[in-house]
């Protein structure tokens, strides 16, 4: 499929139907978030394959930031398919509360539970009313979405579900969408903290159920990654909490506008800051154009918005040949439509490295942006590999500056 034929939401063709190893599923997204929430219990409910890896994922948190949640794996047996699991689940949830008194119990179901259509939601809703702690269901259906980002979004929504309105706490804000360490040091957060603002919670990387329940106090939220947008919108709708989006990493116009809005909201003067950074970025862009104009590339970064990223590279004079779509997809068609006016590369779902290699043989690009292929394969074909900084926790002008520096250093 070429870019001109593609619309957001279209099925992106696989280059090869035989996929190896396949993408992470939403269950992974849920695991990656819930393990960091303090004083909660998580029950993963599914077949052996799913619950084994879910629990293992919980165990693999870094030693520096050990998991805060209690995790239980409830594995389906053959007889459960016939007789159901409602009663057993109810008992398990009640026992877990009696033994450990968590502040919340999250029941996470995988594909197989959704396929057998048992009314788990009925069980969790009933217990949520009856029990002194929150009981919430998170459904993960890999066959409905290929992106684990959906799991993160669902979890963030589940976390803020049931939050009650509270009086506003002045000069406080929450970070949304932070899946890695370092959000407290990202550009907009740093500016706010330096000006006397306080981080009320950092979701989901570092928060407790207590932080979540008091999130309605904050004046506004800072969204550092696309996975936090839906929650930010929900908080706006339910508690009139303004949000500032820093999910787009390369769009300087959007970043500038967001900073201007943030300045208006907080009264922090940011005009000089914006001007200085824009001047620096423009200077670096000019430098990059001299080096990169006319160079062809494959784009395979799986965690950034692909069309925004490719559009940014075309602004530097580069020519896209293939765009491999991974986990993230742009949320608006602005960048896609702008790109369509200037180029028509192939759009392909990420597949085996063998498939990517066949495209390398066909196009012979100068650059390969992303890390989904063995570096030796690229070196042997004289293709320069590079990637943008892999921790998109950075945002504002910080990320784009680093990205251009990386391109200049290639």
């Amino acid at each position, binding site marked *: 499929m070429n870019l001109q034929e593609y619309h957001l939401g279209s099925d992106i063709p*696989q280059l*090869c*139907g*035989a*996929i*190896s*190893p*396949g*993408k*992470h*599923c*939403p*269950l*992974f997204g849920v695991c990656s978030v819930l393990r960091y929430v303090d004083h909660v219990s998580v029950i993963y409910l*599914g*077949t*052996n*394959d*799913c*619950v*084994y*890896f879910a*629990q*293992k994922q919980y*165990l*693999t948190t870094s*030693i520096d930031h050990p998991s805060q949640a209690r995790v*239980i*794996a*409830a*594995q*389906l*047996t*053959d007889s*459960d*398919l016939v007789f159901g*699991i409602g009663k*057993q*689940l109810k008992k*398990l949830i009640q026992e877990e509360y009696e033994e450990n008194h968590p502040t919340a119990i999250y029941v996470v179901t995988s*594909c*197989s539970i959704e*396929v*057998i259509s048992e009314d788990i939601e009925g069980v969790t809703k009933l217990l949520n009313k009856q029990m002194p702690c929150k009981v919430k269901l998170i459904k993960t*259906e*890999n*066959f*409905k979405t*290929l992106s*684990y980002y959906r799991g993160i979004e669902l979890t963030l929504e589940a976390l803020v579900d049931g939050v009650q309105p509270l009086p506003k706490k002045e000069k406080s804000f929450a970070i949304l969408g932070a899946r890695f360490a370092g959000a407290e040091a990202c550009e907009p957060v740093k500016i706010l903290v330096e000006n006397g603002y306080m981080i009320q919670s950092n979701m989901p990387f570092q928060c407790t159920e207590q932080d979540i329940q008091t999130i309605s106090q904050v004046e506004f939220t800072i969204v550092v990654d696309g996975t936090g947008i839906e929650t930010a919108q929900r908080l706006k709708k339910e508690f009139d909490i303004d949000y500032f989006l820093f999910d787009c990493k390369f769009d300087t116009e959007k970043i500038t506008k967001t900073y201007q809005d943030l300045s208006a909201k907080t009264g922090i003067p940011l005009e000089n800051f914006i001007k200085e950074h824009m001047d620096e970025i423009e200077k670096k862009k000019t430098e990059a154009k001299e080096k990169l104009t006319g160079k062809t590339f494959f784009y395979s970064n799986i965690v950034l918005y692909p069309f925004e990223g490719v559009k940014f590279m075309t602004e530097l004079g580069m020519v896209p040949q293939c765009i491999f779509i991974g986990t993230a997809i742009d949320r608006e068609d602005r960048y896609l439509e702008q790109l369509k006016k200037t180029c028509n590369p192939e759009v392909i779902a990420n597949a*085996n490295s*063998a498939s990517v290699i066949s495209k390398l043989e066909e196009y012979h690009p100068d650059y390969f942006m992303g890390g989904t292929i063995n570096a030796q394969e690229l070196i042997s074909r004289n293709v320069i590999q590079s990637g943008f900084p892999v921790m998109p926790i950075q945002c504002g002008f910080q990320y784009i500056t680093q990205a251009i520096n990386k391109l200049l250093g290639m």
Partner: protein
Amino acid sequence: MKVYRILPDKSIRYGLIEAVSQFPEICAIEFGPEGTMHYLSEAVADRSDNVFTSGIKEKDIIWGTTKILEQAAIDADRRKHPSYMILVSSCVTEIIGTDLSAVAKKLQSQLTAKKVLAMDHISFTADESDGWILFSKMMADQIIPELPDYEKRKGSYNLLGISQTDFHGKADRRELKRMLSDYMGLECLNTENGGVLFKNLAAAQFNLVVRQEAVPLAQALEQRFGTPYILACPYGVQQCQTFLKKIGVLCGVDYEKNPIYQEELQMAKRASMYLKNHLRPIEDFSVVLHGTYDKVSSLQSFLKNECMLNRICAVNSSNFKGEDNNIERKKSEAEFISMMKEKRPYLLISHEVYCDYFREISKGFTMFTPTIHRTDLNEFAPYMGMRGIINLSQDMVNAVSCVPRM
């Protein structure tokens, strides 16, 4: 519903994929959500180029269509040219009742693979060892009888049943190969990453099997090609000697005067003695061994017969039922926890997760997978074989001496 508070067992598909990955001329395609294969890819480490997923979408589940699987099989066939193709069900397609045998039959005429096989009707509670057995039996019934003859290569053998992802697995494989090469001049026919080729199944003088689950495959090879097999998982001096003796007799090689063998035997004996001298004086020394059947059986024998330890409790962590009566059957997680609380062994030999979980009861020694934070990069530090005795003794002494019992 089985409830786990520490870690569930590895699934049957984990074992199945692990076993298939040993045969690069076979392609396996799972018909299911991409996520499961992404996770399962850890079972195959660097041998992942013959196991695939087709992915599955909501519409495939609603309409019961298998087009996505058929396309995956066609693409894999075109790209890899496998001799055999195996279609594997996922939990989702098990529930919706996809008839993989019918798909296999339909695909047969469209593919260059000699045979398209289906693997479905898989139990939800089966574990990794069941996956190995399922695959071994499928090989024995469907593939081995069809393999052509090849001229026998004297002094050559295949290693069957070794997993790439076992803790110290790569190092153990390397050590077994090295011993048989250095002591007896035998040639291992496995590929660099442990793969087994069909022509070599026919050509080998014997097969060396390191896990019982692969025995049905070895038996089928014996029947088809007259190739004898030796089952061995040699930990410790005595078992290494028995193992080498069997092979020496089978191949007619007198290796005992080989200076390399003699030198290493003495070193191994010293290490084993060191371990014995270190463990025996510990007043309340007792050990719980928890792992896969063959390894646990062999380790128990080593600790009992060589280190003269009496208080050993060996527990099978897999569904596989062997003939060793000294090994306790697989326990549920709750049973294992209460056993540990009751016995309070001095040392627990298990996987990293259990060793970590029970650290307040016992000192832990990680010898099995899964590992979480431990890496297994060193391919020259085996636990099996002659050099393995030295490593094993050293690491076990360190585990006992250097980590305080909490």
